[in-house]
């Protein structure tokens, strides 16, 4: 009777089918919300940086606060060496945040609730960080897997654990974001379905839950974007500073 809560994640083609070779790169609803999120970011930050007044207006304040927020996050976790990667982490944070937030509007599509999207982002970060690490430290980057102050007997075990944890970084990073977004949206859909199935008499309780969940999900949307960005900073810090 209740609506399948997973239908909201379905991807469908908008417009004609586009193919390059054997690859289908048609414009879908997912692509639409990627474009909308990116455009929204560009418009807001373009307006926020257009004119410089000593006393910033609201949109300029928003842009500058986001700038200093991300800048502080990077310098706190990865130090001053991470400055060249500021633009990437800023765009990453904003992209994930806007995709999450657009997903909170009813009848929209949540780009980040798809494992393939988050995995591509995470894999790109993982490969990029690994390349940066090897460029900065050469084969000395492998010291990352050998923590100092560990008894020699335990060393082989620790090294294996470290390698596994390093290799699982893209998976944990992508699954964390994807699962959070999917679970939240599914839960909201389920509660929405309860409102309908219980009707005007008993539907008030799930409705109030639904309202509360919406607030929670907005928090989660921000938090997951923040976590995604800050974990990227931490991985970058490992590659740049090699603390182990």
């Amino acid at each position, binding site marked *: *009777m*209740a*609506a*399948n809560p*997973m*239908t909201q*994640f*379905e*991807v469908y*083609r908008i417009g004609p089918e586009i193919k390059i070779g054997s*690859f*289908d*790169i*048609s*414009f*879908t609803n*997912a*692509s639409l919300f*990627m*474009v909308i*999120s*990116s455009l929204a*970011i*560009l418009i807001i*930050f*373009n307006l*926020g*940086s257009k004119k*410089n007044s*000593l006393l910033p207006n609201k949109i*300029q304040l928003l*842009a*500058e606060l986001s*700038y*200093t927020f991300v800048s502080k996050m990077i310098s706190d976790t990865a130090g001053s060496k991470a400055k060249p990667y*500021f*633009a*990437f982490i*800023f*765009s*990453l944070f*904003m*992209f994930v945040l806007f995709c999450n937030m657009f997903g909170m509007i009813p009848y929209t599509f949540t*780009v980040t*609730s*798809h*494992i*393939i*999207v988050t995995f*591509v*982002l995470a894999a790109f970060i993982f490969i990029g960080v690994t390349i940066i690490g090897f460029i900065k430290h050469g084969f000395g980057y492998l010291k990352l897997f050998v923590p100092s102050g560990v008894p020699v007997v335990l060393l082989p075990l620790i090294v294996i654990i470290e390698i596994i944890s390093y290799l699982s970084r893209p998976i944990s990073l992508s699954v964390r974001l*994807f699962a959070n977004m*999917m679970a939240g949206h599914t839960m909201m859909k389920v509660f*929405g*379905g309860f*409102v*309908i199935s219980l009707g*005007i008499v008993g*539907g008030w309780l799930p409705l109030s839950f639904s309202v509360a969940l919406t607030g929670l999900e907005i928090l989660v949307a921000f938090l997951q974007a923040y976590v995604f960005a800050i974990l990227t900073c931490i991985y970058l810090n490992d590659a740049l500073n090699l603390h182990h």
Partner: protein
Amino acid sequence: MIKKIFFQSIFFNFFFLKEVFSAESGGMPQLNPEFWISQIFWLSLTFGILYIVLSKLILPKISANLELRKSQIQENIEAAEKQRQSSEAKLKEYEEIVVKSKIEAKNIFKDAREKALKNINSKKENLDQQIDEEIKKAEKEIDVLKKNAPEKINKIAIETSSEILKKLIGADVNNSSISAIVDDLSKRGGNKYYGN
């Protein structure tokens, strides 16, 4: 209000009913690889454009804006600091002038007092000296008179005694013998002879 919500819920019911009947596929649509390539392609495209535009156009502008504001505020603070310092220096100058003039006034007062005191002292000394000299002179005169007095007295005594004797006896008595007696008497002390 309740009526409105009621009608709204009925209105939204149609949306959900439509979905209820259209929902047929099971499982997670995320694991359906049909549009994976498309999603990867559009993600790379949109994120790439976003990154390039942000990093080349927008973020440098925001950074410049922030820097400009920071430097402007810094400049203002520095200017304020400078003005504060200059006003402090002026205040110090003023205080120094006040202290200096106070010291000067004190010195002038002191000098005047000393001068006056000196003047008085010197005049006093002069007067004292004059008085001393006068006293000494007078004492000398008195001394001289004192020294001369016994001789004169003796002379007078001799003369008077010789005249008395002449009148009494009617004959001249040798002056030298009278003088001897007078001397003798004056040496022994007149009081014993003359009584009270």
